[in-house]
């Protein structure tokens, strides 16, 4: 052995520290200030993309030949529906990581994702309802797509209610994780519901395997709004996880300092 191995004791320390750096931000205390620094960036991006997306949606994208102006709901409906499913998968992922690896920050992230996910699920249902009335003639129909999306909303509510009902945070994390992981099965059901069943809801206009079946400006507006909602979600979840960290770490010295500094 040559080189690094020779001056064993002294040289081994910094190398080990480098390896540990990967996990540095898995501690709530170090993640807290990092999240605080990231929030303004994501919030600004969200606002800018939202303005651009709404502008394209209303002023660039042409009137639809069949649906007239009613179709403009698409620019919030589809991104909200995407986010509702995506956030659920991310929530279940972090809840699962927290369950298996016993990392508290992962579980705190999962808890912080739930309200924003529930919000986008509600918005997907609400905007869908306001789109369904003029195009289908009904606010609601119990078809597979709508029903499975409603179940997603109940899964989010169930996750939050279960966690709120258990006093010990680590037990609440574990119980929530199991519910979240079992509920993941609903996400592919929502996604494929329009293929598996005969639904009133239309099939996907945008998919990974086919070229999109819509005008370029419509597609662009929709994708920009999806990015806007994505950035918004990151900013909102980071803001919430900071509060969750403070709530759970209130007994620590650093939390006291943060309380004195920011309170």
């Amino acid at each position, binding site marked *: 052995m040559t080189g690094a191995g020779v001056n064993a004791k002294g040289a081994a320390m910094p190398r080990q520290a480098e390896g540990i750096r990967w996990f540095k931000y898995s501690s709530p205390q170090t993640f807290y200030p990092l999240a605080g620094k990231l929030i303004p960036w994501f919030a600004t991006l969200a606002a800018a993309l939202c303005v651009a997306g709404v502008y394209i949606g209303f002023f660039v994208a042409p009137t639809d030949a069949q649906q007239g102006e009613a179709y403009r709901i698409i620019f919030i409906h589809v991104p909200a529906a995407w986010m509702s499913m995506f956030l659920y998968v991310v929530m279940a992922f972090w809840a699962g990581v927290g369950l298996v690896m016993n990392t508290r920050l992962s579980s705190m992230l999962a808890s912080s994702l739930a309200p924003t996910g529930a919000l986008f699920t509600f*918005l997907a249902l609400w905007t869908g309802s*306001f789109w369904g009335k003029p195009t289908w003639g009904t606010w609601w129909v119990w078809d597979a797509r709508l029903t499975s999306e409603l179940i997603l909303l109940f899964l989010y509510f169930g996750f939050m209610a279960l966690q709120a009902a258990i006093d010990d945070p680590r037990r609440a994390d574990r119980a929530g994780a199991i519910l979240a992981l079992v509920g993941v099965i609903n996400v592919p059901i929502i996604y494929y519901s329009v293929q598996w069943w005969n639904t009133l809801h239309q099939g996907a206009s945008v998919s990974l395997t086919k070229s999109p079946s819509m005008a370029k400006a419509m597609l662009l507006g929709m994708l920009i709004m999806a990015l806007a909602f994505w950035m918004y979600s990151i900013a909102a979840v980071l*803001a919430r996880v900071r*509060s969750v960290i403070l709530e759970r770490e209130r*007994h620590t010295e650093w939390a006291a300092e*943060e*309380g004195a500094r920011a309170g």
Partner: protein
Amino acid sequence: MNWGGWKEFLAMGGYALYVWGAYGVTLVFLCAEVILLKRRRRSALEHVTRYHARNAVQPHEAAP
């Protein structure tokens, strides 16, 4: 440009209720979440401060 003027824009080709009903509620809920997040942060900070004020050991009180 799709619209002849403000009136035409607001009328949304007869779908004003649906388009603005969808967009309006989305805007209200997103703003509400931001407000709730700010409130939660304030209350979390207050709780931390109160916790440490309550648990601070006063030197003359510490002795039995």
